[in-house]
């Protein structure tokens, strides 16, 4: 689905990622770890085309990102759900509107029954009319998850989804993502929380990638 071949990226001349090869297959479950500033967010952004590679090739669903039009890229977003650490909501819209935003922004009618079901799944049905700033960190993260999956994407990319929430809530988010993966959705979670990764091992067959020395490596059994 997503394939990176010999991808290089730098920020202002400073090399951040070099020679990255990665293939995210349908139904796979990845953790992406590494110290802060190592390039986890950058790699996630490269995967859904928010950033362009300086060199190398990135294919999204078999199409070369470098030659994709802006509209073509926009259209791939319904197949890629993205969860950011800071959620990225529109604060003037209600939670239900934010979760339904992928439908609204692409001019499709909102499937209200599905939306209701989804909000119940993430435990936010009673907050449908609340504005995002009034919600707690955990509630916002679960809402972000709901928004990421409302279009039933083929893959969910999560950048530090548990960064702002307590342990219990991070476990709850993880179990939601694992449940999603069992349904066939590929998942990649960038996190520096090694406990979260260890905990997931018992629930799902995951692979852990680590960014170190500007390169992407498959982490060994030490985790």
């Amino acid at each position: 689905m997503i394939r990176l071949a010999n991808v290089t990226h730098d920020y202002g001349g400073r090399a951040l990622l070099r020679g990255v090869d990665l293939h995210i297959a349908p139904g796979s479950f990845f953790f992406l770890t590494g110290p802060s500033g190592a390039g986890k967010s950058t790699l996630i952004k490269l995967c859904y085309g928010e950033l362009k590679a300086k060199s190398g090739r990135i294919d999204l669903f078999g199409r070369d990102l470098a030659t994709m039009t802006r509209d073509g890229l926009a259209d791939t977003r319904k197949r890629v759900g993205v969860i950011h650490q800071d959620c990225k909501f529109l604060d003037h819209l209600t939670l239900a509107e934010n979760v339904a935003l992928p439908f609204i922004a692409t001019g499709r009618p909102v499937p209200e029954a599905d939306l209701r079901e989804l909000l119940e799944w993430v435990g936010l049905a009673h907050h449908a009319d609340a504005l995002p700033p009034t919600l707690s960190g955990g509630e916002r993260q679960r809402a972000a998850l709901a928004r990421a999956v409302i279009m039933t994407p083929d893959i969910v990319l999560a950048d530090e989804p548990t960064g702002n929430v307590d342990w219990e809530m991070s476990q709850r988010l993880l179990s939601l993502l694992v449940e999603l993966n069992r349904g066939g959705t590929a998942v990649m979670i960038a996190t520096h929380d090694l406990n979260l990764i260890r905990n997931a091992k018992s629930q799902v067959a995951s692979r852990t990638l680590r960014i170190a020395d500007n390169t992407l490596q498959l982490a060994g059994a030490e985790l």
Partner: protein
Amino acid sequence: MIGFGQSRTAFTDAGRVVPASGYSAVLTAATAAAMAFLAVFALALSVSAGQLAQRWSQTLSQSATLRLSAPESELSAQTATVLEVLRTTPGIISTRILETDEQRALLEPWFGPDLPVEDLVLPRMIEIIEAPEGFDAQGLRLRLSTEVPGAVLDDHTRWRRPLVAAAGSLRGLAWVSIALLAGTMAAMITLAAGFSLAANAQVIRVLRLVGARDTFIARAFVRRITLLALVGSLAGTVLGMLAFAVLPVDGGAGFLTGLGFSGATWLVPLIIPPLSALIAWGATRAAAFRVLRRAG
């Protein structure tokens, strides 16, 4: 079962994805109103100058005067020749020899009422009434110069030309003003759109993230700003028209007689609001796509 209450609004109104922007929206509408108000005046000037030019050329061109100077003994014969020439000139409906009383009336403003016109050797004046299509003044002059050298044709062109030219340049100035107003409006809307797009950079990022195409994002901004320009310029136009309807701009005789709208020309300023909306639409659209493409 949960209801969605107020949360449903953006489900049907996609324009709501861009938050309302209080004072910049008010400023945009107010500027559009001011531009429209000024445009009404420029349009009034243009319409009036056009009518003025038309009136002057019409009234002055429907008649001409022929002045015949000849020795007393030949006057009658030459008058007859002239009348015959005029009769056979195409485009002349009728001719009429001015009476002595009429000549006195014409001279009175210069010489006073007691002028003994009978004792003066006055040229004979012949009034010519033209057909609407006019006659060939140049040809007539040539013919007269050979047949009756003492006859001088005055078709009022030398009076008319500067007046019509003045009205024409007034009209040109009015159109330049309208073009400047339209340009200023486009520039102002571009700035307002640029501000709005910059203030909503985060909104645009989120929309791109969830799969919105550029056209959807641009439409949300374009719709809002176009609507503001339309409402603002509608208010400005109505105020401008009210000013003409209420104020005594029709100040009797004189150069500015009839400045304003009359009859069907009252419909002319109604073009301002849709035109403003069109300008706003184009300017916002251009600004939005420029910003979106730059955002990468």
